[in-house]
């Protein structure tokens, strides 16, 4: 019961914050409501009993990515110009609504093979076993740092003074 109430509150907060991201004219306020949306998504992870992912979400999205975005907003002077729409506003709205309708139709008409087994908690030891253990995802885990290194080097090379 408590989980239901938590889900509805988090879902409504997340959707309102996401709408504020695309509808607010002030870019900085849009970034702050993006942070609120990330926090709501972290709460959604907790209702899904994904405790490790909720912590990672707060660390990476609320902690790192939002700071990067706010820093980029500060470094560019577009804050004064706000966040106007281009002339594709109405087609984009139609595309988004059609997409949402299609997905909702597909979701509600598919007989999902829902398992009644209780969720695993805590998930951290099981995730560690999957990521680093035998027969797990060790190759992607090794590739991910190379991607991160390439991204960091690329970012430095892009913003360096010539």
């Amino acid at each position, binding site marked *: 019961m408590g989980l239901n109430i938590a889900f509805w509150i988090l879902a409504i907060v997340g959707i309102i914050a996401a709408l504020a991201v695309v509808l607010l004219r002030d870019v900085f306020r849009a970034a702050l409501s993006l942070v609120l949306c990330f926090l709501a998504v972290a709460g959604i992870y907790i209702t899904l009993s994904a405790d490790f992912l909720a912590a990672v979400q707060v660390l990476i999205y609320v902690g790192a990515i939002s700071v990067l975005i706010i820093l980029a907003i500060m470094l560019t002077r*577009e804050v004064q110009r706000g966040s106007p729409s281009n002339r594709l506003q109405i087609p984009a709205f139609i595309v988004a609504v059609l997409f949402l309708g299609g*997905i909702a139709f597909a979701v509600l008409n598919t007989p999902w093979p829902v*398992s009644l087994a209780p969720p695993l908690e805590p998930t951290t030891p099981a995730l560690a076993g999957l990521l680093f253990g035998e027969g797990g995802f060790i190759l992607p885990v090794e590739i991910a740092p190379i991607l991160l290194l390439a991204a960091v080097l690329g970012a430095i090379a892009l913003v360096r003074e010539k």
Partner: protein
Amino acid sequence: MAIGLEHYLILSAILFSIGLYGALAKRNAIVILMSIELMLNAVNIAMVAFSRYIVPLLLTGQVFAIFVMVVAAAEAAVGLAIIISIYRYRETIDATKIDLMKW
């Protein structure tokens, strides 16, 4: 009414649609990047929900969500670096005015 898989999938679809609208209809490149982050978050919710309700003991969806977060962090770093670099040369990050490669 108990919360089930469908609720999470619909929530994820709503967040994805909002992000899609923002990515298509906004001029400011940073707002477009923020919309893309919204879409990635929506996909993560869907994957964790599938992991929780379809295979609750395997956690494969959560592992994929972790990799999506890694790629999202890399994408945000490179994307914002590109935006700042463009701003330095052209004094604008209006996506409709950055049309150097438009044929």
